[in-house]
């Protein structure tokens, strides 16, 4: 590395400019890399579910008897719409419409909470009907896959609420919209994963 290059690098760091050569900041690039690794995690969990979904005992209830498709469809729709509210929050923040960005942030968190609430309700119903985590391999793989997704949504809600609090304290302005964009990427990823889970786990013929 030449002296000029070293000077340039040290200047970039001292200015707090952490842009990558890909035209996005390192923070955003880091989120993309994390999401790439999360794809592998969910890919493995979905494959495991596909392999084990038919491994049920003769008296156990299977996916066809357990799933309540209309209920899960509503949950899926709610999560899908939360992707819209988060992009609306981002555009509102970019144009410095702080009040509207807060409303959309709150709406996204509420929609996410409704989805998680629906999942908790679904798990409770399954448990009461006799499908526990260790009942059979179908139960184990199903609860692991959808439970991991539920935890991702919950973490997303916590991050969105922390941004909401920052916004209320005046620490989230249009100049810092990238914070929300990065959390938004995570949120959309969670939505994309659910699109795949909903189709493969719930809708594919059993």
């Amino acid at each position, binding site marked *: *590395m*030449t002296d000029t290059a070293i000077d340039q690098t040290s200047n970039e760091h001292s200015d707090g400019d952490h842009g990558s050569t*890909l*035209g*996005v900041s390192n923070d955003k690039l880091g989120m*993309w890399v994390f999401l*790439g690794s999360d*794809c592998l995690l969910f*890919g493995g969990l979905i*494959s495991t579910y*596909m*392999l084990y979904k038919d491994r049920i005992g003769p008296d156990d209830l299977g996916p066809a008897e357990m799933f309540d*498709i*209309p209920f899960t*469809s509503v949950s*899926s*729709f709610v999560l*899908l*719409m939360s*992707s*819209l509210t*988060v*992009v*609306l929050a981002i*555009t509102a923040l970019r*144009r410095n419409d702080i009040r509207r960005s807060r409303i959309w942030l709150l709406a996204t968190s509420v929609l996410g909470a409704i989805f998680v609430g629906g999942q908790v309700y679904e798990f409770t119903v399954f448990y009461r009907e006799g499908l526990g985590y260790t009942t059979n391999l179908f139960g184990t793989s199903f609860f692991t896959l959808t439970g991991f997704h539920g935890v991702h949504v919950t973490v997303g809600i916590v991050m969105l609420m922390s941004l909401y609090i920052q916004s209320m304290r005046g620490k989230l302005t249009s100049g810092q919209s990238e914070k929300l964009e990065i959390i*938004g*990427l995570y949120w*959309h*990823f969670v*939505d*994309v994963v659910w*699109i*795949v889970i*909903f*189709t*493969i786990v719930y*809708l*594919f*013929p059993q």
Partner: protein
Amino acid sequence: MTATEQQLSEGADESSSWVKQDMVYIKTAIVLGVFTAIEVFTYFESVHKAPDWLLVITLSFLMVIKFFLVTAVFMHLRDDNAVFTKLMVLGLCIAWPVYFIMAFTFGFLPNWNPILKVLFLLVPPSITGSWLGFSFKGGTGSHH
């Protein structure tokens, strides 16, 4: 045009561009909602009697379109550096044969003719992979 009029005009243009952007997101969400409704429709008795392979192909097609709509529009993949899209497509090229080999091995898909299976496993990723190979321009190699 006076300075005030010019400022007002610029403000109106900016506002109109935000409205347009929001409308793109809203239209995308409507399309996603409609596709989800079609997916759920396949669950109902009369449609569910259709052959399994037809349901699987239809649902997979809708799932892929929804996946790409969210990543391209909501996650701004279409506006970000093309290398992100290429990396995602590269991952999908590798995932395609891996997942379908698993699907054939465990009987999730019908037991087709072996030649048809090989073509199905290799042709789509090969075509896409070739496009990727040509699309990477490569650097000058001058790292120093």
